[in-house]
């Protein structure tokens, strides 16, 4: 006899999603199972529609089930082409021989896990967006980037600044977080809003690493790229703990007195990001314990705050973190005090 569950028929996905995010453990498990089944039904409908020549929303066709990533890794075979290369590994497939493919796959998984487990965010767009990585991009290429169109590109290094970029979990987290920022605050990639965009990626890239390693704020290195820097950038690319001291070329300021006015690099987005980076470090270490719990949640609330506009400056973002701390943990609590201390440490008066 077929068992019919009315819950699966009448409960809208939005309500199931809320239960999956905030329900008790057994409710959450049930909601996740139902959403996964619901996703399958929707996928079937979409595929039927496709066969009938009806154009479905691409995201719905490609997105993964709730609570799990939908990763695809392509091998660009050292080509400069930005079109998708050879399919190297899709979601659920076993590891392959190529370490770069597996590193990207696993790093995306770790990043998805942080955002889902801690912030209940379902992928880049919170709607199950596919996570697409392109490895072995170009030749002698020491860079990784987010293209603004749903793809992350990773080079194999230039033997000077970087080695193979996929070896770094925090770099992978950094790039995927650019996608999260695009789908939340959508911070313009120039001047202070661009520096905040970069900082948010460093903050959550570091949290991805800390969460995967089970490190507290006190145990973490707070370094970015220590696994992938080449000889010119040893020992690390950036430090949230000590901006300006990560390597011999590091010129990041640690406070507003040292703010760098420049037209290069979109107005110094990778330079002045040191200021909000250090504020986060002070907040997290002042609160203590796991940085992703209180400090990470405050920063995640801030990038989703409707008052944080695309051209947001440091002060407006700082005020958003203060609001988030007050609302989530209570004004006058240790979290709110820590946020104030963090921005004071970088000489930004709230």
């Amino acid at each position, binding site marked *: 006899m077929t068992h019919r569950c009315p819950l699966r028929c009448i409960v809208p996905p939005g309500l199931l999603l809320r239960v999956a995010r905030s329900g008790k453990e057994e409710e959450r498990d049930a909601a996740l199972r139902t959403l996964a089944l619901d996703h399958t039904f929707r996928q079937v409908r979409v595929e039927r529609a496709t066969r009938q020549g009806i154009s479905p929303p691409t995201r719905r066709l490609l997105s993964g089930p709730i609570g799990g990533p939908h990763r695809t890794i392509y091998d660009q075979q050292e080509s400069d082409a930005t079109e998708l290369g050879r399919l190297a590994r899709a979601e659920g497939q076993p590891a392959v021989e190529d370490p770069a493919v597996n590193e990207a796959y696993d790093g995306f998984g770790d990043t998805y896990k942080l955002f889902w487990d801690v912030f209940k965010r379902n992928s880049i767009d919170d709607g199950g967006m596919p996570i697409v990585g392109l490895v072995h991009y170009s030749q002698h290429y020491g860079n990784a980037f*987010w293209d603004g*169109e749903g793809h992350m590109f990773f080079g194999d290094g230039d033997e000077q600044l970087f080695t193979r970029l996929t070896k770094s979990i925090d770099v992978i987290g950094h*790039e995927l977080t*650019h996608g999260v920022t695009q789908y939340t605050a959508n911070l313009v990639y120039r001047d202070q809003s661009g520096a905040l965009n970069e900082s948010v990626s460093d903050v959550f890239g570091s949290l991805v690493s800390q969460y995967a390693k089970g490190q507290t704020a006190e145990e973490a290195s707070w370094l970015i790229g220590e696994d992938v820097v080449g000889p*010119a950038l040893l020992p690390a690319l950036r430090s949230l703990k000590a901006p300006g001291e990560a390597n011999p070329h590091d010129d990041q300021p640690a406070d507003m007195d040292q703010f760098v006015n420049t037209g290069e*690099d979109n107005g110094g987005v990778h330079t002045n990001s040191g200021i909000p980076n250090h504020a986060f470090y002070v907040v997290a270490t002042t609160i203590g314990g796991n940085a992703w719990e209180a400090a990470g949640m405050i920063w995640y609330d801030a990038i989703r705050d409707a008052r944080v506009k695309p051209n947001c400056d440091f002060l407006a973002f700082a005020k958003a973190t203060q609001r988030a701390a007050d609302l989530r943990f209570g004004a006058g609590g240790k979290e709110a005090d820590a946020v104030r201390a963090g921005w004071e440490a970088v000489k930004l008066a709230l």
Partner: protein
Amino acid sequence: MAGEHAQLSLRRTGGLAGLPMVASLDTRELDTEEAEAISAALDAVDLAHVGEGPPAAPGAADMLHYDLEIRRGDRSDTVSFGERQMPPELAPVIRTLMRRAQPGR
């Protein structure tokens, strides 16, 4: 222009590191085959329209930007382009320069 030596200066900015990289090159320093390859690439590229391609999509981050100065005989050109706008003819020239590049703060 074919066969004429070229002096090139490159400044690369942006990228995940945000560290400027600079390089200079006189094709007379290269072996004949490599110098001819660069000369041919410079002959093939339409310098007047470099950088006119579509820029990176809104939301893109950590992409590279290049400023390249080319001096050949009496002529001097400076072109500026994002990595998505790089003409395919220039890619091997940029790679040759980047192999010589040093941090340039």
